[in-house]
């Protein structure tokens, strides 16, 4: 099964890019590939170049140094990533001393500063994960990811298990941090609203491929690929007057459709779409789409 096929992405320093797609589009697999944490026996071809160095050539020891320190990761469910038997203090000390030779005292001082920046009271540093609410745990996870000042933060559905108000709180904090630390952000989500609020660039995934990539402004206001257009129309928001959906279901990646993978669901598909794989082509400056008829949608 090809969970991802022929994907190429650049993230500039300080830039935030949203990876959007539905279930099975391969967006989470991408996050794991960037961190070189794909499950065993997964075959990956290609390269991840980070700050000029190629990660795929490094041995495990060196990658481990980059992962966690230079590239940090936060997941959907913080409870499954925090050790229930360790206090918050222990989590921080472990994370910091795994990467840097600092005293426990220095590590603690940094931990407290990181917690405070996430608006978690440092007086609770001796508490265990279960003593915090869901939103607090996610703040702690983010503080833990950011305590070593990473250059890149990969966030896989970081707010999906949270309520809408807490989600908005976390997104505001992420934005502040991004600005303050000039950090790059790879935000993986199915929620287009979040991308519109937080990201500079968007890559739309469908069935393991990028179908369109560009600035948030272009993608949300001038989408080219029919899938992007239909996906944006299908969002139910407060101004929705009419419901729209996309016919059919996302394909099975074991035997994806030939040609353009979206052609069986595409209302504009023609015979050639079944045969020819559309290249990701630039239609506007900085906006590329994988559609044979892209110029018709300009």
């Amino acid at each position, binding site marked *: 099964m090809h969970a991802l096929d022929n994907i190429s992405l650049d993230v500039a320093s300080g830039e935030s890019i949203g990876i959007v797609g*539905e*279930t099975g589009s391969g967006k989470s697999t991408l996050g794991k590939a960037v961190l070189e944490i794909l499950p065993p026996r997964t075959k990956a071809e290609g390269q991840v170049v980070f700050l000029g160095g190629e990660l795929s050539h490094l041995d495990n020891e060196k990658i481990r140094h980059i992962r966690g320190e230079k590239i940090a990761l936060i997941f959907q469910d913080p409870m499954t990533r925090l050790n229930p038997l360790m206090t918050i203090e222990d989590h921080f000390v472990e994370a910091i001393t795994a990467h840097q030779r600092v005293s426990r005292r220095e590590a603690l001082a940094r931990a407290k500063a990181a917690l*405070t920046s996430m*608006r*978690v*009271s*440092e*007086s*609770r540093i001796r508490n265990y994960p279960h003593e915090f*609410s*869901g*939103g*607090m745990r996610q703040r702690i996870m983010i503080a833990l990811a950011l305590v070593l000042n990473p250059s890149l933060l990969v966030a896989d559905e970081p707010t999906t298990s949270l*309520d*809408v*108000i*807490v*989600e*908005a*709180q976390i*997104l*505001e904090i992420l934005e502040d941090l991004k600005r303050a630390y000039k950090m790059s952000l790879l935000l993986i989500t*199915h*929620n*287009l*609203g*979040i991308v*519109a*609020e937080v990201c500079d660039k968007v890559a739309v995934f469908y069935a393991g491929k990028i179908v369109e990539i560009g600035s*948030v*402004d272009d993608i*949300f*206001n001038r989408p080219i690929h029919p899938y992007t257009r*239909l*996906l*944006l129309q*299908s*969002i*139910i*928001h*407060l101004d*929705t007057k009419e*419901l*729209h*959906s*996309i016919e059919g*279901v*996302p394909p099975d990646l074991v035997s994806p459709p030939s040609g353009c993978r979206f052609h069986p669901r595409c209302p504009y598909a023609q015979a050639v779409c079944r045969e020819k794989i559309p290249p990701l082509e630039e239609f506007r400056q900085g906006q590329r789409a994988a559609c044979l008829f892209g110029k018709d949608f300009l």
Partner: protein
Amino acid sequence: MGGPLIQKLFQRHKSFVHAVDGVSFTLKPGEIFGLVGESGCGKTTTGRAVLRLIDPTSGSVKFEGTNITKLKEERLRPLRTRMQIIFQDPHASLNPAMSIGSAIGHPLKIHGIAWREEDVKNRVLAMMREVGLTPEEQLYDKYPSDLSGGQKQRAVIARAMILVPQLIVADEPVAMLDMSIRAKVLELMLLLKRKFNLTYLFITHDLATAKFLCDRIAIMYLGRIVEIGPAKDIYKDPKHPYTQALLRAIPIPDPRKRGPKDLPKGEVPDAVHPPAGCRFHPRCPAVLSTCGWEGRDFIDYLEERRTSPEKAKADEANLGSLEIWKAEGLVAERPCEPNKVGKITEYVRSILNEAPVPLAQAVERVNNVETKVVLRFRTPDPLGPKEVEGRLVECLLY
């Protein structure tokens, strides 16, 4: 002492969660009524109590004029054919070992409405066509694992519809589905409503979907309805600060509309010990001094101060650890040595000057009682639903 150990372990705690408290609403025939709120607000509990899937500890549920709260199961069963439920997770709602056809036809057999296989099958096939589960002859013998998420939810809807009920409680029916197929399922629900004159109790956390679908909505927070009325009025001009906050927090899929949102702080507190007065008061951006301040709000304030490095330093030096503070009802207190009690009392008074005005104004007095510093809040004003511009709002602002 005495008695088996296990029994004692289980008997130790007897605290109940009042998931829902004082909630009252009426469904009009043929309407879509939305119960909207965040996780833990009691919307699902309310939906289940309506169908008597759980028994309320007090209060009553009337269905078509009959009080069903205490009805025995055998009297309730015939009514069940007229009220059905659709759950959030279509994967978990279908028995993986039961074919789609027999799952949809099952209620007919349970309620003794149709027995002959042929009759059951014909009714099931007709309903499958009705919900768009086609080609129905082919899908009839398939199992849930052969279906997509959207198809499964259609099967669940067909099973709820096969008895042609009056009322359907739909608990987050599209939350688990991908965006591109949500609209299809919602359209189907609207179509069925018109055709069969259904009434929906639509339970959701998604204000946008509720806005599109519902005639009237009730906004729930921590077990209570804070605002209830016609959907279009509430969305146009929300009255309760919680409703306003919820609407502001929704991410807008338009990068041109970015901006700060003035969000309420913190999170939904533990439902075992809900806040006094208005349950939203500790987070409310429009809170008044009369909304229900209590001892633990002061301790929360002390904790919040520790997220600011300068205040944390000063508080640490003057007050020490937060853990010795105790809150009980309107009172927060801290034991201390007799020679320090005066100084600490003064310090507590001084930091109240830096506190948000409503909190500071709600304090009745701070004094020292020998070896304790005691802070007491005023008794809050009584709170109840009030009629505001065609809806009921539970808020002291009105």
